[in-house]
């Protein structure tokens, strides 16, 4: 029996790229730095969540109806009458937010240790593309439950495209397939959500990992471990990904799943942040909710959009700012002029700017979930105060810091006093 199986294996190996060879390249013989810390869990976890979303999504699709008159009811049908349907739905809704949590932490890791710097620019660019695709995927998916927030959130976002000069209104019409968000919009968003964007996402993830495994992983010291090789030709500071990081990531995955399950089973709404309360009201095109807020993972950019004052009655400058706020990420590898990668050997300038960036990102995220009068109004009047809402001005300051973090980066990273980088990784 064993010999026959081996013969069958050999038959396949002779007719396609060797599986054993691929396993060696990407796991057993892929040498990763031995000093990965907590921050290095989130890449593998992102892939885990992607898997969770695809599998739960397939089963949801079997019961969901992409029809404006049936969609809301079909979600309730899943929640009540489909055996285990409530579990599938909560897995998928918790997974959506969890995806952004792990991806944001994964990206922050890149900022901490300079993982985007030469020679990993392409790894970073594929990563940013994954992030943008994920935003689209989340946006399309959020329309599907067809609640009030689904509907009006989509209405607001599609209208943003309508602000583009000249082609705007036609562009928005083309996206919606109708003059308002309607059944036609729901149908196309369903198609984009369940097949088009997941395909792109999978392709980009493969590219991201292939590029990474070609150049090798960065590490918390920002040292190229390939520079110091032992007599066997393997990096002295590297260990095979399998079994060392497979068992370590397994441990991280179990811990992550415990947190995931705690949220999913005990607080699936997370106080209205993961599942918004208003989304339990069916979409009503004639009734605009008093307060429209996107889900938490979009709110930093929504805040930037609202912070920028309109020009000639057009919101286009805000839309531009929001677009630039995401697109600027592509240029990060060339904006950073520091000779060192890791925050451990950077100077006070970069550390301060990164800390400021994190703080303003969180503040912008919070403000985006609230009305602009959440912090009250200024008690005085002045000619330059186009709005007296304190939160709007706070968002403007934060937006400025957000952009300065990137635009001033070539200047402050080049001037920063850096520490000497050791030859070998520290533990």
């Amino acid at each position, binding site marked *: 029996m064993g010999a026959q199986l081996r013969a069958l294996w050999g038959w396949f190996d002779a007719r396609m790229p060797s599986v054993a060879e691929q396993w060696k390249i990407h796991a057993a013989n892929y040498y990763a730095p031995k000093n990965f810390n907590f921050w290095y869990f989130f890449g593998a976890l992102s892939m885990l969540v992607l898997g969770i979303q695809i599998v739960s999504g397939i089963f949801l699709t079997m019961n969901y109806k992409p029809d404006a008159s049936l969609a809301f009811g079909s979600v309730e049908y899943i929640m009540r009458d489909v055996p285990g349907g409530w579990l599938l739905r909560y897995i998928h809704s918790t997974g959506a937010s969890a995806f952004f949590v792990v991806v944001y932490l994964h990206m922050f890791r890149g900022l901490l240790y300079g993982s985007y710097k030469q020679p990993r620019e392409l790894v970073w660019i594929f990563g940013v593309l994954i992030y943008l695709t994920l935003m689209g995927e989340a946006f399309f998916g959020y329309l599907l439950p067809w609640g009030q927030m689904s509907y009006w959130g989509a209405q607001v976002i599609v209208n943003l495209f309508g602000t583009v000069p000249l082609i705007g209104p036609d562009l928005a019409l083309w996206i919606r397939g109708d003059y308002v968000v309607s059944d036609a919009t729901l149908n196309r968003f369903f198609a984009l959500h369940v097949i088009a964007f997941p395909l792109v996402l999978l392709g980009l993830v493969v590219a991201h990992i292939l590029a990474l495994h070609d150049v090798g992983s960065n590490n918390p010291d920002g040292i190229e471990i390939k520079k110091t090789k032992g007599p066997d030709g393997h990096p002295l500071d590297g260990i095979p990904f399998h079994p060392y990081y497979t068992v370590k990531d397994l441990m991280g995955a179990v811990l992550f799943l*415990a947190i995931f399950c705690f949220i999913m089973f005990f607080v699936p709404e997370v*106080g209205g942040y993961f599942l918004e*309360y208003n989304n339990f009201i069916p979409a009503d095109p004639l009734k605009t909710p008093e307060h429209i807020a996107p889900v938490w993972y979009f709110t930093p950019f929504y805040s930037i959009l609202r912070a920028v004052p309109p020009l000639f009655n057009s919101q286009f400058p805000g839309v531009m700012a929001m677009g630039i706020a995401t697109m600027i990420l592509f240029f990060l590898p060339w904006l950073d002029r520091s000779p060192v990668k890791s925050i451990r050997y950077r100077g006070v300038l970069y550390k301060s700017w990164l800390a400021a960036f994190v703080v303003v990102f969180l503040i912008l995220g919070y403000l985006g979930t609230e009305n602009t009068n959440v912090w009250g109004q200024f008690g005085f009047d002045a000619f330059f105060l186009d709005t007296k809402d304190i939160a709007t001005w706070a968002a403007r300051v934060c937006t400025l810091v957000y952009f300065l973090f990137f635009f001033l980066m070539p200047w402050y990273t080049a001037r920063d006093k850096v520490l000497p980088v050791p030859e070998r990784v520290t533990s």
Partner: protein
Amino acid sequence: MRKFLLVALLAPLAAFAAGGGYPLDRSPHDPRDLVSLQSGAHVFVNYCLGCHSAQYVRYQGLTGIGLSEAQIRDNLMFTADKIGEPMKGPMTIKEGKQWFGVAPPDLSVIARSRGADWLYTYLRTFYRDPKTVSGWNNAVFPNVAMPHALWMLQGERGLQVEVPKDGHGHVAYKWSEVSKGAQSVTEYDATVRDLVNFLVYVGEPHAASRKAIGVLTLFALGVLFVLAYLLKKEYWKDVH
């Protein structure tokens, strides 16, 4: 740095707690109290289902609150013939619009959009107001289209709102009795508690099994984590 981040993370929660409007009472409902759920179902079919529906809830699903199919058929099914039918009232959307100006909303997930505290307070804060079409108004939901459906139980009440002149400080709400209802204040509060309990139940009928499975899953993951940790430690002992 770390401390500052924590403050920045928690600040939104503090701001979230603040807000205007009539202060909400905490709903005393208990999803494990089957008697309360059954009594809530009774109030629901007698007082709510005439105008509202709960179209995503099937009568059969009420076996989840400890009722047999025969009990459901005999006591709760006024407008349906088959046990598998959804809970729909006799009133159509068109009629609702004609009579109240708006169609009474479906109540299947009302507890999920409004929250239990809101419902518990709302159903206890109707008052007589000659300025509205229905003659009723509500402290939590000003100018609500719905008249007080439970007024025969609670009785009629009046409300005087005193706003402080300087615009600062708390708004004072002064309730008065116009006519007595069939129930005392305590009895009425219990009726509303039962009704809210039922609405929370139908909002998510699987909530109880969700939590039960959650406990088991977390226990299993806890065991798995210990094993995964030991496995990792075993493999990593030769990495220096």
